[in-house]
């Protein structure tokens, strides 16, 4: 079926893939997303009575980030009904957003491999930041290990009865807290840190944590929120403001945190209807004060603009 590919690979050591079948098909696929690709329909058929509103409710509410090294370009291809099934950007945006790197990667295997390698390096950097410090845990105990982990990421820690410990501008911090082995950590400020699902291992060992701030953390998502339940007996304050990956589905598992008194869910771009979500979260956690996620959101509204009221009829 593809003698041309074998011929080409035998020809040049540089492995130029300019005219091979593969690359042409790849370019065709990218340029014509509306054509059925090998028979797949681009929109969900819904031919068997499945409710159309179900599909419509599943919208990505934040601009998707393409996995490329240039500044992210809003593809615009994943909004709209049946948006999830249209995973290729439409032709117009594609042309504008194509960078030199993408152009070369389409045509040269080596550039493609280089780009994949760089992307994988980015991912592994995050993994490396979230590695557990087992040797510190064994020697000094879980509280010190957790504190060290947070400080290394660039966050701040407060032990019981002490002041906040923060790393300075260059990321250095004093190691005085190493002697506080038996003092529990009361508050953690991990705002802006690259903490992810694996990194939460170190945090969950802090059994008497009362206040946790995860503002603007780029890798905290719904899966991470489902992991917070071991802290239920002590956690009283949680802040998730500005986390781009947290949606209302993750907020549903905050239900385990029965001791929670303050919850900040402002400015969550992935939540589809902030007003309604806030009301449902308030119902779910009756003794908790829920901040944010209403029409204010840091925007300045003119006097004629209505607040975005998605509450609908008042639930019982």
């Amino acid at each position, binding site marked *: 079926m593809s003698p041309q590919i074998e011929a080409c690979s035998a020809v040049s050591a540089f492995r130029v893939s300019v005219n091979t079948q593969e690359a042409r098909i790849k370019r065709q696929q990218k340029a014509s997303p509306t054509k059925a690709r*090998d028979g797949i329909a681009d929109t969900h*058929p819904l*031919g068997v009575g499945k*409710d159309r509103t179900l599909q419509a409710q599943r919208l990505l509410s934040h601009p998707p980030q393409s996995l490329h090294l240039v500044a992210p370009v809003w593809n615009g291809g994943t909004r709209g009904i049946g948006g999830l099934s249209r995973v290729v950007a439409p032709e117009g945006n594609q042309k504008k957003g194509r960078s030199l790197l993408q152009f070369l990667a389409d045509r040269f295997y080596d550039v493609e491999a280089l*780009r994949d390698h760089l992307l994988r390096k980015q991912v592994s950097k995050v993994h490396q930041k979230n590695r557990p410090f087992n040797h510190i845990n064994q020697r000094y105990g879980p509280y010190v290990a957790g504190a060290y982990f947070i400080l290394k990421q660039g966050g701040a820690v407060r032990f019981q009865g002490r002041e906040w410990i923060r790393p300075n501008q260059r990321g250095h911090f004093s190691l005085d807290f190493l002697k506080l082995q038996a003092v529990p950590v009361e508050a953690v400020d991990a705002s802006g840190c690259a903490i992810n699902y694996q990194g939460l291992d170190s945090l969950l060992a802090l059994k008497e944590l009362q206040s946790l701030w995860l503002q603007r953390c780029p890798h905290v998502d*719904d899966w991470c929120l*489902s*992991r917070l339940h071991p802290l239920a007996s002590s956690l009283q304050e949680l802040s998730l403001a500005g986390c781009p990956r947290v949606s209302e589905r993750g907020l*549903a*598992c905050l239900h385990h945190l029965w001791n929670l008194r303050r919850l900040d869910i402002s400015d969550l771009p992935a939540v589809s209807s902030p007003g309604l979500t806030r009301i449902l979260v308030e119902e779910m956690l009756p003794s908790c004060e829920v901040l944010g996620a209403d029409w204010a959101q840091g925007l300045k509204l003119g006097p004629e603009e209505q607040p975005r009221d998605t509450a609908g009829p008042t639930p019982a």
Partner: protein
Amino acid sequence: MSEIKKKIQSILPGGDWNPLYDTSYLPPEGSDVVIVGGGVLGLSVAYWLKKLEKPRGAIRVLVVERDHTYSRASTVLSVGGIRQQFSVPENVQLSLFSVDFLRNINEYLAVADDPPLDIQFNPSGYLLLASEKGAAIMENNVKVQRQEGAKVCLMSPEQLRNKFPWINTEGVALASYGMEHEGWFDPWCLLQGLRRKVQSMGVLFCRGEVTRFVSSSNLMKTASGEEVNLKRIHEVHVKIDQSLEYQPVECAIVVNAAGAWSGQVAELAGIGNGPPGTLQGTKLPVELRKRYVYLWHCPQGPGLETPFVIDPSGTYFRREGLGHNYLGGCSPTEEEEPDPGNLEVDHDFFQDRVWPPLAQRVPAFETLKVRSAWAGYYDYNTFDQNGVVGPHPLVINMYFATGFSGHGLQQAPAVGRAVAEMVLEGHFQTINLSSFLFSRFYSGEKVQEHNII
């Protein structure tokens, strides 16, 4: 002029030079692995085959799917739940691996230049309720699940009422609640993600139906001296959609991932042609079973924290979205199995069999309004309602990845990896699924689950 240009381009190396007619809709004339069925299981096998092959690009994989809109495929009609609360340890391991896959789906299925996938996972967990009779079984199950690493906790009726005040705990003796790694997600997104990744890895797709297997037999003697007739499939005839044309595809390995129709595909390969009671006469016991799913709206219903609740009577429901909509259904008993000929929904089934236990369990559901309903097929394994994985003992190059009776979607990534390991290495490496092989249908060893939905 453009015609001449096209002709010249097709003659140059890299073009598809075919002077007589366009054959791009036909599958290739030969392929190393032919996967019958392009649902989530078939695509998962294709993905892992391409991921685990050494060297890269060594294996040519062809996926044959006759329903290109997936209008009857079980994957997209599924409710989309994933749980670890099984009683068979292998099932728990499969689910744990799959949940790991789903969590890191953007690392596994990343395609450069395409946006990352959002499978809309709701980590709300499963809540299984047990009556007095089932409480001991549930405790045993939870012990097994915890041993494998699932995070499940047991709750008494008192704790249940505290946590979920909308539940009526009458008749409930024990409940098991999955705290992590359980919930539901969007199966269409997983399917699309797998599809685009697998296409970028070079797997070929064909829109057609498998109508015939051409195989050769060898009469061989086993170690104990008895004669067995081993078959090997050489060609797969793929009939193109809406046409009489077919293409014989030479293949080395065939993977049967046809879902609810796997039994028919197995019959084409001659599995089950023989005197009953022998290995030749053992058919693949996978058949179509129709199941209904109903979507209703109840403004006073349970709140955001609602898990996927499964009643002791077999009725289940879960929340859908923010707007007090719920999905649910019930498995019919053997006597009231609906006719699987079509996907029409029986609304009386909801009135008679689903609503009463629901309203009894959640009093708020007494006032609900059904918004929509649909039906889908289970690839129901009539033997023991668990999957069939691995090669057939007689048709030696047909591998199965089917028969999961309602939990195929949640175990698909792990099963795909198991089948790929079996094909490439010859034995299971990550999860040992030897108890799921075909030979158990002949030897009679059932791998039975204690709670099936």
